[in-house]
């Protein structure tokens, strides 16, 4: 049983719950970004940014799966069953959220077979996609931050009158 993954999941969900309690709008954006990369950004109104980030992370994850013949995600495989792979990959793949969960459920029981030259590279692609999604989650929290007070112009300040052209001094 991959106990490290379960501990990581508990810590991640506890952190996200804390963020939601602190600021619901921003915390929900972080949760949505974990579930689907870029969804938090789209929820906040940054549609092109969300689509761009989704395309990159999803393409990397899918490329990794294809290289491994869809055998890269096996978070609860015992060492004896999945020869030549290490459970640590799942710690990074976990941050792909829904992609990780659906792939793990659908491909449960199918593990690495012999003569897969790109297996390690495929696992690396899926793990890097997960770690990039951590940056996406942090970005979702960051871009939704309210502006500091010093950046806001005073609401009732009268604009200075522009000098007239050709006015004599």
């Amino acid at each position, binding site marked *: 049983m991959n106990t490290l993954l379960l501990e990581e999941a508990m810590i991640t969900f506890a952190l996200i719950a804390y963020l939601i309690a602190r600021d619901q709008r921003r915390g929900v954006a972080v949760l949505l970004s974990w579930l689907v990369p870029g969804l938090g950004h789209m929820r906040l109104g940054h549609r*092109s*940014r969300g689509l*761009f*980030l989704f395309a*990159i*992370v999803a*393409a*990397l994850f899918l*490329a990794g799966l294809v290289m491994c013949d869809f055998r890269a995600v096996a978070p609860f495989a015992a060492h004896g069953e999945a020869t030549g792979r290490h459970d640590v990959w799942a710690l990074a793949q976990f941050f792909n959220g829904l992609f990780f969960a659906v792939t793990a459920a659908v491909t449960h029981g199918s593990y690495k077979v012999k003569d897969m*030259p*790109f297996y390690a*590279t495929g696992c*690396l*692609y899926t793990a*890097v*996609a997960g770690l*990039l999604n951590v*940056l*996406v989650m*942090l*970005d979702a929290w*960051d871009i939704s931050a309210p502006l500091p007070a010093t950046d806001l112009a005073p609401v009732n300040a009268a604009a200075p009158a522009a000098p007239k052209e050709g006015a004599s001094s």
Partner: protein
Amino acid sequence: MKPAVTLLENILLFLPVNYAVCLVCSTLRRKDMQTAFRQGTRLFIGMTIAVIAGCAALYFVMEFILAR
């Protein structure tokens, strides 16, 4: 014994990961997506050259040390 993955294949497989990382990192804290894309591409080209040059230099240094 023939290696499972050749050096050229390794380099080619490294490039998409590098590009994805550069694009995501250049998007952070940038509002304009076009600028982020351009900066990310520039960062990818620079990093690829730096990594390949660095690894080649390390290879020759190690070869020199081992030959002595």
